[in-house]
């Protein structure tokens, strides 16, 4: 090699580099010539061919949109269907005077201004040659009127379209969800070939989480057209594959019972079939009518929904965060037994309040005089606060956190819906990282009765209750039972079930205490257990909305309705062979026993009597 010198050989290097520059330029010119040759081939040699394709007989590829899968409930009731409707549409490119045409149409069909505004908004987002809907569902009368006047409206036509319809309206809106027009952001994310020609996409509920299954596969046909774009013949056709039908675990009759039972209260009712984890009711009240969202809800109507103090668009069952209140007590009691912190017969004294050493703050019991000496069963049945203040202190926050976490508190349940909240199960680490503060002993005390930082969703409560009823075998809630397409029936995958390592004697103690809540004369929900031949296990709860000052007393009638406590109830039945678990939250309901428990009872009674009549 000539290069043995240590210093840099600049002239040689320059020469090498210059050589490479020239080679690079030659390569670039040669490749450019290749491009030019190809361009000349297309534009000179192929010009006639392509010009013909472009001008006279062009081949159009028309997508064929698959029909969207239907959604059924457990009994085969239709929750979402495709209705055939006539849609009045305009192609702006073919309309010579758009304003005039719209004015004449408005006069002919008495179209409200907001529909015209909506059309104008859509028009700005679409190409000029696409057909844009003005009225998505023409009535027969409107259709007849237009049919007569049609020759005078060039570029306007009525097309048969499939429109998604939800027969149960606001009853199941938070479960089924709705479809809406594909917006620009969604268009960017979607696989373009799959959605060519599609107008709608699932926006909420199972319509959204099972979008792929419901949508199906788009087909296409190659159509030869003449100058005017009129089809001459179809060259090739690939049929679309219709979307799969969904069969939900939801029971719409039971859903209605639960929804109606909430009456004047906002809130949520979640019922789970314990054996399968199938969700039987998933109520968030108030609901909303999903049908206007399909054709595009008007601005004022949406505003009204958005600004309503009852927040109908808010999915309380999935995303509502509430303190669990006393419904946490069975789980706390089980923790006490499992960790051997208290014995089954061991009694703790309840004088009506609890104080930490060296602290003047009194943590009060809901019963002024206290419950006296109570054991763990009596504490659950009578919902003794002081017992659980003490127990929480004895357990400590670390063990409380570890134990409750096993039941799914603080974590998403994994239901097949988007947007689930994970709630909040507080711990030392959480407080240090989020609040930058150490954990105080007083916070452990109130965690014992489900107050403080702990927040749960109604769905989480139902899952934890079902898991308790199932002897610690974890129940994962799901809404879709089967996905049925023409080709195959696919049951929705069941997650492998893990069982919590709990002693059955301890679980039985807790369940017996929860039965006494409903069936003993000291129970806090004894009004609901009178007319049945099986036993319901339950626990009432009350979650504070406002803080009551020390030495002040809570007077339900003196305070504003919106500041009243939330009423909670968790339950399952039959207690000896649990089939169904129900969690109820009635916002501002006041008392768990008198307001929330009867709601759960109605759901349980209907479900079990249906089950009995269904059996031979």
């Amino acid at each position, binding site marked *: 090699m000539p290069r043995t010198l240590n210093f840099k050989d600049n002239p040689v290097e320059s020469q*090498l580099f210059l050589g490479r520059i020239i080679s690079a330029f030659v390569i670039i010119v040669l490749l450019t010539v290749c*491009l030019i040759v190809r361009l000349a081939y297309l534009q000179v040699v192929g010009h006639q061919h392509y010009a013909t394709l472009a001008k006279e007989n062009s081949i159009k590829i028309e997508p064929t949109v698959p029909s969207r899968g239907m959604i059924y409930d457990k009994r085969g009731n239709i929750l979402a269907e495709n209705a055939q409707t006539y849609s009045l549409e305009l192609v702006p490119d073919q309309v010579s005077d758009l304003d005039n045409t719209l004015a004449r149409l408005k006069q002919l069909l008495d179209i409200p201004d907001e529909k015209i505004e909506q059309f104008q908004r859509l028009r700005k987002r679409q190409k000029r040659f696409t057909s844009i809907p003005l009225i998505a569902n023409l009535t027969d009368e409107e259709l007849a009127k237009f049919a007569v006047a049609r020759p005078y409206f060039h570029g306007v036509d009525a097309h048969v379209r499939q429109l998604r319809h939800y027969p149960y309206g606001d009853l199941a809106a938070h479960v089924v969800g709705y479809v809406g027009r594909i917006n620009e952001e969604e268009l960017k994310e979607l696989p373009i*070939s799959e959605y060519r020609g599609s107008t709608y996409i699932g926006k909420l509920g199972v319509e959204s989480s099972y979008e792929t299954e419901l949508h199906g596969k788009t087909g296409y046909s190659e159509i030869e057209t003449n100058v005017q774009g009129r089809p001459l013949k179809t060259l090739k056709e690939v049929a679309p594959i219709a979307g799969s039908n969904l069969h939900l675990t939801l029971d719409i009759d039971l859903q209605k019972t639960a929804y109606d039972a909430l009456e004047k209260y906002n809130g949520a009712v979640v019922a789970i079939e314990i054996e399968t984890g199938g969700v039987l009711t998933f109520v968030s009240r108030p609901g909303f009518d999903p049908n206007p969202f399909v054709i595009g809800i008007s601005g004022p109507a949406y505003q009204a929904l958005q600004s309503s103090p009852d927040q109908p668009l808010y999915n309380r069952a999935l995303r509502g965060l509430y303190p669990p209140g006393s419904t946490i007590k069975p789980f706390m009691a089980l923790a006490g037994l499992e960790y051997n912190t208290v014995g089954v017969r061991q009694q703790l004294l309840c004088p009506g309040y609890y104080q930490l050493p060296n602290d003047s703050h009194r943590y009060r019991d809901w019963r002024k005089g206290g419950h006296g000496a109570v054991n763990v069963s009596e504490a659950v049945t009578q919902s003794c606060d002081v017992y659980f203040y003490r127990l929480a202190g004895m357990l400590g926050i670390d063990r409380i956190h570890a134990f409750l976490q096993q039941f799914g508190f603080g974590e998403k349940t994994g239901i097949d819906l988007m947007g689930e909240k994970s709630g909040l199960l507080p711990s030392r680490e959480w407080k240090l990282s989020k609040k930058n503060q150490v954990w105080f002993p007083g916070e452990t005390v109130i965690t014992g009765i489900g107050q403080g930082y702990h927040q749960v969703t109604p769905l989480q409560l139902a899952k934890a209750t079902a898991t308790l009823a199932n002897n610690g075998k974890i129940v994962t809630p799901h809404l879709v039972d089967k996905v049925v397409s023409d080709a195959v029936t696919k049951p929705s995958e069941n997650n492998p079930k893990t069982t919590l390592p709990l002693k059955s004697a301890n679980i039985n103690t807790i369940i017996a205490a929860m039965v006494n809540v409903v069936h003993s004369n000291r129970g806090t929900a004894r009004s609901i257990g009178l007319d049945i031949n099986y036993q319901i296990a339950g626990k009432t709860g009350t979650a504070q909305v406002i803080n009551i000052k020390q030495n002040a007393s809570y007077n339900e009638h003196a305070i504003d309705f919106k500041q009243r406590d939330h009423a909670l109830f968790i339950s399952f039945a039959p207690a000896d062979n649990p089939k169904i678990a129900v969690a109820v939250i009635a916002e501002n309901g006041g008392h768990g026993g008198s307001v929330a428990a009867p709601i759960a009872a109605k759901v349980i009674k209907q479900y079990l009597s249906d089950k009995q009549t269904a059996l031979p």
Partner: protein
Amino acid sequence: MKIESRREQFDAPSLVERILSKLHIDIPLLISLLLISCLSFVVLYSAGSQDIELLVKQAIRVGLAFLLMAVLAHINPYQFKRYSALLFGIGIALLIAVLVMGHIGKGAQRWLDLGFFRFQPSEMIKITTPMMIAWYLADHALPLKTHQLLVSGVLILIPTLLIAKQPDLGTAILVASSGGAVLFFAGLSWRLIMAIFVSLSALTPVVWHYFLHDYQRARIITLLDPEADPLGKGYHIIQSKIAIGSGGIYGKGWLGSKQSELEFLPESSTDFIFAVFAEEFGLFGCLGLLVLYLLVIGRCLYIASQAQDTFSRLLAGSLAFTFFVYVFVNIGMVIGVLPVVGVPLPMISYGGTSVVTLLAGFGILMSIHTHKKFIPD
């Protein structure tokens, strides 16, 4: 006094020239870039359904990009060299960050949201990769040795694979070729270049048969034969060939593009804008555009040949060559000779990110050309 001020007015061109050289701006390069930009607005007006708002948006982005070019032209090339490794390291770290975030967010992500704009680390890496390789090779005499080749190969492969995983095949190709170009200018022997090509093509069937799953093979087949997927990318190719071919020698004239307007061609103002250009301006227009591109590339190669130190030479050469790869891959894809990968037509397509990176590269080239007093090592 009066006379003198008049003379100054007469000497205005030379004054402008003096100012520009003070500003470290290279006039031939600036003029050809401005010409291409003007052409871009002309085509965008037509391809973007004559939307003025869209043009204004693009003009702001291009204006900012030219500003960035002027700023970078001011910086001494020595500074680029000094921070090469650091910038490359930051780029790689950001690429990994984006990949991890995308993984958590359960979707492909290419950018970091900085609030006021979205930053794509893969764009930064397009420039920092050749900088890194040039920096690595600059301190030793050329041509490069075997171990240098191996280390450089790994350095190029890291960002390329990270970007290919995003997945952004187009950018991965550009990054790989920008690094490869440095090696080429550093004197990678022709025999080795041939050997690499031969071994790559020999390896292909092995990889095809033993390392790919069926679905991966199917994906590659649609990549190579887009007509098999007429509703997706194949549709673009069919339509863009019709558009280009129907343009003929003279084109249909400005705003005369029927295909882009009548057919659903969603990328007519971004990746497939060349089809609109070719339809409206014909073969002559295409030749004109290619000549403009060659002028830019020629000027850049000239700048590279005049550079005084190894780092500047290698970097300038690579930036010039990568610009060509940009042009070649995009036009090749639109006229149906290369598979469809997402690469915009440089300086013409709608969008801000690629323009910013391209003009940043030209800023570095101008810096190299206008800081001649810089003495190597």
